[in-house]
């Protein structure tokens, strides 16, 4: 594998394409973050200039930090996202294993039943969900959000994970069985480590809609104590729509945590993929 596979021209072309697309992808984020550090006049006069000392201004951030309880919102978002993610991955992998590993009556039917949720937005059932939460006394609790997001994430997790689990070698699992491992041990110690890349992929795809959701926090948990950061920044933008410094600062602060969270998971994702478990 040590031979050079690419001519220099191809390598340069590959980098050119990737750099171009990276710029397209990051440009809007750059615009928000750069302008959030500038004075109001500079935002309008030179939107693309970097915040040099003569334009530098933190007035937007001062407004935001005076107004909103961003740390509490951040903490709420964190708890909801991480706990939901844990349950989605655990329950999803268990169900995917059952569906892909065992032949039993109703297997296909169960697979279709669970896949149903990929295609129907859970939002269509919002009114009934709200009724359930009211009856259970869970309105304005993070538990309500966690339950809903777990249900929302499971179908896709089961679908993707069972696709990947079908490619795990049968010989390996049978060798485990011959060695006397229980089905639970086979799942937790043999199969789970092998589908780690898929787990990381599912984690990223599950985490994003949960973190960014506006709908359920607004309906199920709009109280000050349970606001998530997405809801918090939406409310803030609504109140300060003409105060560009404050809006841009709020957007920057809303980007930052999810960016950090993503970079943490992304390293996991890269490690998972490149460790190439299946190989």
């Amino acid at each position: 594998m040590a031979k050079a596979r690419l001519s220099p021209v191809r390598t340069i072309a590959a980098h050119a394409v990737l750099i171009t697309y990276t710029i397209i992808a990051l440009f809007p984020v750059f615009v928000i973050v750069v302008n959030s550090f500038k004075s109001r006049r500079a935002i309008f006069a030179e939107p693309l200039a970097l915040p040099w000392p003569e334009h530098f201004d933190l007035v937007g951030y001062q407004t935001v930090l005076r107004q909103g309880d961003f740390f509490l919102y951040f903490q709420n978002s964190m708890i909801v996202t991480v706990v939901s993610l844990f349950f989605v991955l655990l329950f999803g992998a268990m169900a995917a294993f059952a569906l892909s590993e065992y032949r039993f009556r109703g297997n296909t039917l169960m697979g279709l039943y669970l896949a149903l949720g990929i295609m129907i937005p859970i939002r269509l059932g919002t009114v009934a969900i709200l009724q359930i939460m009211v009856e259970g006394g869970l309105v304005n609790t993070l538990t309500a959000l966690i339950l809903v997001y777990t249900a929302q994430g499971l179908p896709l997790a089961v679908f993707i994970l069972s696709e990947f689990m079908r490619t795990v070698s049968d010989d390996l699992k049978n060798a485990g069985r011959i060695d006397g491992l229980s089905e639970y041990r086979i799942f937790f110690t043999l199969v789970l480590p092998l589908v780690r890349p898929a787990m990381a992929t599912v984690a990223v795809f599950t985490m994003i809609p949960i973190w960014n959701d506006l709908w359920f926090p607004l309906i199920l948990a709009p109280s000050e104590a349970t606001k998530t950061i997405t809801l918090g920044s939406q409310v803030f933008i609504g109140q300060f729509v003409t105060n560009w410094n404050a809006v841009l600062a709020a957007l920057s602060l809303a980007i930052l945590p999810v960016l950090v969270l993503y970079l943490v998971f992304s390293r996991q994702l890269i490690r998972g993929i490149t460790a190439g478990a299946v190989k």
Partner: protein
Amino acid sequence: MARGKPVRWHIAVFLAPAVLVYTALMIIPLFGTLGQSLFNKGGEGGVDFVGLANFATLFGDPRWSEAFWNALGNNLWFFLIHMLVQNPIGIALAAILSTPRLRMAAFYRTAIFIPTILSFVIVGFVWKLILSPIWGIAPGMLDAVGLKSLFAPWLGREEYALTTLALISVWQFVGIPMMLIYAALLNIPDEVLEAAEMDGITGMSQFWKIKLPLILPSIGIISILTFVGNFNAFDLIYVAQGALAGPDFSTDILGTFLYRTFFGFQLQLGDPYMGSAIAGAMFAIILFGVCVYLWGIQTRLRRYQF
């Protein structure tokens, strides 16, 4: 499960948590909504069973059907742009990224995925700013390369607004097909590629002849995910154009139409029964697409076990 075989409790244990949570919080509420589409307000504040009358109104009554077919047509266009722009770009980026020993591949992959993690609140707002004729980053940039005449307030013009929003959505979500295809490409064993090289198949023809057939299942998955995502779309249009999906409903898709009907807007009161009927229609459309995928595409794909 004939006699003599022990009951395999572990299957139930593996399935139970997912099935319970999913059934209680997704299936039961959803079917509650579908059931509601068969009812409507009756006399004396009661509720009457009306069968499929709500659907007849939705498809036939001009007050409803015009908006419905408009939203459906817009939604198809929205989907088509994603299939023709987002997925090919995603596959191409993944193919380039999976080049062996490419420097900075991790950086590119991380950076290109970043728009996908941003919330619709942020995406809608920043693109409105960039495309705004007043603040003018887009007109300024076109001016710098001498193309200022090409600029138009894209989000404000009926003929461009939907396409512009679809492209913004492509910008945001191109990372998803890229990641899935990238993972699939990395899972192709080296032996297969080495064998191809032995036979003199390299570069582009290696991609078309060896890798593409092996990642077809993943392409099937991203197609159906795109379909489902697009026909459930709502947030971006809502954040950028409001619930009225302006200008003049030119960006109205099924999600925004459902929202307006269900919760009401301006002076019109919300109508949960017609809203449920629209939800039912969306359900049928999506079900149709998924059936096409499951029986038409997935069963014909070969799955390889390495």
